[in-house]
């Protein structure tokens, strides 16, 4: 094994850099059809040292389960998307392997594939959530104003730091697996199922994760299964590394969504009825579908007070590659649609959206979807006030609105607009109960007064490690250097669950604190070393029964508002953001500069999703041309971003804030664009040609 000279717990080796003595490579043979079954697989003449691996070579189960859904490790009888893995080829030269995989003939019985999802049949529904409060039909029948719109968002590429990959090798009596994953214990359990061995016989050694945006939640487990299977069959260490292009074309993307929003306003212009129909295209397999729907439903209903509401949310199966989370598990779809819609509604009523929302936001004690009263006050007033002061929002909105109304023809006058959006980020447990394990963090204080934190939680940056270490150091009264985080090998650390929904800074951070407090209580009574475990029991899941919902939607919630100001190029109509402002109530902010940098990074990603980044799946999720066209927004074309935090209360907890830019900025951007262009826009990203077309329409 070739390793860095100084092993650094914060910076483990990357999967791409990993080499093991005698290691060979693996390449994936993929399905050429989007739906059907495999009749036969004919490998080309394989040179010595090369070998093909088929589903019948799998010693255990040919399946991987995740959140209630299962997907084949190597598909055979039922193909669900073009590019689905059907076989593997192993050998020493990765370049030759690519050619051999491309030359392999996969003969299939093709069936008619399903690609439509905005209108769908009942057999395509993988999961459904319905919630009703009050009498929405009556509210709409007596409403003074009814407004209805459809909002769509496209798929997005995670563009993580390193393409997905995995390596596997027998290490004495254990199968050692290396991959960059958000969930090491899921990798372990999946590999054990495929190899038909005990879970303890698999050791997962996570490699450097980097930026993942929830794209490495479950897919690394599939690649780990492939690498472990190849290693088992060949009896040698095997690495399977996707190229950027392969990763772009075949791995999960952000799910596409279509949200129909219908609102009814009463006589005073306040929200009297809300009716949402959310369709999320989850692609070929409904992994995390129920969770995404739950998050989307609560996001649509837990910000504004509405006595009569109905939400129907569907996870729709298609023959696209699997699609799912992206910087959050589904809330951003609803926030984008609802906030854009409410901004338009306020504008049509001649009111500043910030004021309209202020009148309609939920207050402590008001009933939410679950029938329970809201426990904490929504900090709307403080956030909106601060944001307005930072961005000069109110004056700019009034000016641009005046310009828009007086504009005579297309392109006349300054084409500027400013948009506002408000949202929350829930952190903590999954709502769906698909993940019902108890999660653990262990702390050890050894005889040298050095504390070791043991957790399988995967971190993408050093910032989270710093938060844990600071917390432990503060509780134990030790210097920061005396706190270490044990590398998260599944042999060494307890299962701390999947690292998503900002759990690392909420749940795991809390467990670190509790474990250290337990040590501190015994520290001067019992001899060293001392060990303490802290366990997080996932609360009871949300119950959905015939339109009624029961349970608690989130553990903690951080709130934020964003304002985006932009102008349109008078010749090309390309949108050019001028400034972005965000104000957050993120609870206790451990390191404000790092937190602000994290929010700015999220804001840039969210802006990229509004402007340049798009994957337009037709039959495949992406095409080669799209791969070459896809790119992040150049740094020099991004606007300045100002971030401010509200002063936390005395007992404020640490909250997750990473998803807030994705929950707020798209709606603010689209509202600004609508104001600048003088026409309503309802989908993102928007191409300049669409803006020109829309502004031509009277």
């Amino acid at each position, binding site marked *: 094994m070739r390793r860095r000279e100084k092993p650094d717990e914060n910076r483990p080796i990357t999967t791409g850099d990993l080499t093991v003595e005698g290691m060979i490579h693996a390449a994936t043979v993929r399905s050429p059809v989007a739906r059907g079954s495999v009749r036969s697989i004919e490998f080309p003449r394989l040179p010595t040292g090369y070998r093909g691996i088929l589903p019948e070579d799998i010693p255990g189960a040919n399946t991987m389960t995740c959140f209630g859904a299962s997907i084949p490790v190597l598909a055979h009888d039922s193909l669900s998307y073009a590019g689905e893995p059907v076989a593997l080829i192993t050998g020493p030269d990765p370049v030759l392997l690519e050619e051999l995989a491309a030359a392999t003939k996969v003969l299939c019985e093709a069936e008619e594939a399903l690609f439509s999802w905005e209108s769908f049949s009942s057999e395509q529904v993988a999961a459904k959530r319905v919630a009703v409060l009050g009498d929405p039909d009556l509210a709409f029948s007596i409403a003074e104003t009814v407004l209805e719109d459809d909002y769509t968002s496209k798929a997005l590429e995670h563009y993580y*730091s390193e393409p997905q990959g995995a390596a596997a090798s027998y290490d004495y009596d254990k199968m050692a697996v290396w991959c960059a994953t958000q969930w090491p214990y899921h990798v372990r359990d999946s590999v054990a199922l495929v190899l038909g061995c005990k879970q303890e016989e698999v050791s997962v050694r996570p490699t450097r994760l980097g*930026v993942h945006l929830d794209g490495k939640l479950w897919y690394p487990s599939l690649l780990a299964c492939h690498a472990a299977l190849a290693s088992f069959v060949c009896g040698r260490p095997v690495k399977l590394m996707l190229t950027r292009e392969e990763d772009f074309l075949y791995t999960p993307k952000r799910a596409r969504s279509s949200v129909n929003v219908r609102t009814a306003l009463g006589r005073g212009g306040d929200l009297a009825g809300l009716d949402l129909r959310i369709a999320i295209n989850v692609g070929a397999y409904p992994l995390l579908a129920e969770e995404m729907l739950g998050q989307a439903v609560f996001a649509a209903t837990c910000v504004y007070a509405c006595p009569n509401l109905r939400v129907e949310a569907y996870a729709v199966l298609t023959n696209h590659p699997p699609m799912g989370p992206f910087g959050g598990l589904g809330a951003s779809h609803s926030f984008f649609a609802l906030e854009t819609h409410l901004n338009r509604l306020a504008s049509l009523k001649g009111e500043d959206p910030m004021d309209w929302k202020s009148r309609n936001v939920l207050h402590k004690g008001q009933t939410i979807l679950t029938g329970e009263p809201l426990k904490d006050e929504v900090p709307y007033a403080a956030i909106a006030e601060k944001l307005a002061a930072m961005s000069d929002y109110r004056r700019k909105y009034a000016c641009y609105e005046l310009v828009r109304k007086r504009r005579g023809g297309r392109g006349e006058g300054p084409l500027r607009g400013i948009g506002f959006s408000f949202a929350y980020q829930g952190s903590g447990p999954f709502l769906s109960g698909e993940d019902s394990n108890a999660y653990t963090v262990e702390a050890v204080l050894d005889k040298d007064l050095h504390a070791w934190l043991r957790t399988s939680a995967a971190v993408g940056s050093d910032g989270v490690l710093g938060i844990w270490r600071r917390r432990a150091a503060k509780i134990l009264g030790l210097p920061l250097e005396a706190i270490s985080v044990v590398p998260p090998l599944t042999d060494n650390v307890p299962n701390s669950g999947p690292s998503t929904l900002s759990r690392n800074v909420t749940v795991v951070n809390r467990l670190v604190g509790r474990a250290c407090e337990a040590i501190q209580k015994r520290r001067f009574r019992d001899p060293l070393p001392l060990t303490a475990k802290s366990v997080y029991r996932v609360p009871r899941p949300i119950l959905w029964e015939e339109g009624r919902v029961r349970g608690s939607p989130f553990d903690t919630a951080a709130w934020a508002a964003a304002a985006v100001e932009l102008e349109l190029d008078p010749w090309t109509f390309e949108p050019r953001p001028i400034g972005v402002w965000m104000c957050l109530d993120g609870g206790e902010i451990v390191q404000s500069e*790092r937190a602000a940098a994290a929010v700015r990074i999220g804001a840039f*990603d969210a802006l990229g999703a509004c402007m340049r980044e798009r994957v337009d799946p037709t039959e495949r999720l992406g095409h080669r041309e799209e791969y*070459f066209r896809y790119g992040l927004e150049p*740094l020099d074309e991004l606007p300045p971003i100002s971030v401010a935090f509200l002063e936390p209360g005395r007992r404020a907890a640490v909250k997750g804030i990473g998803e807030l830019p994705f929950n707020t900025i798209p709606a603010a951007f689209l509202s600004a664009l609508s104001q600048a262009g003088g026409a309503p826009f309802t989908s993102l990203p928007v191409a300049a040609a669409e803006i020109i077309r829309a502004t031509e329409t009277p």
Partner: protein
Amino acid sequence: MTLSFILNGEDVSARVRSVDRLSDLLREHFGLLGLQSDCRGGRCGRCLIMLGGRLVPSCILPAFRIRGMEVVTIEGFSQTDEYQDIVAGFKSAGVETCGFCDSAKILATATLLERRTRPTNAEILEQLSVAPCRCTDPETLVHGVQAAAERRARRLYHRAR
């Protein structure tokens, strides 16, 4: 064919095929893992090297093209004073990267500072767009490059005196 060139200040030679990419040669033959070869299309910037003082993506460069030329990778550059200036500047500004794009950002900064002793914000952001990564906070990065430029200028001034 056998190829001779200067790698990080040393004369080296290697046997290459006409199809070999420079990035593969550097990683696999010379074990220089500071550069990566993710996209193999010159887009991701993870494989940047300095070739004759210019920043180039090594994954689209045929290995045979570097015959007799001088190649500097992050491993070689890390032995220089300029590297120390940049790393110290980044650290003082709190630049945090994902660990995958560090080498590209450092080499991009080095070539920029070679051209412009006091680069503007726009020049910094344009130059660092060669290594697109979702980990980047442009504001901190600009401060980091400015701090590096300051340190470099101070060091060169003292040396000149």
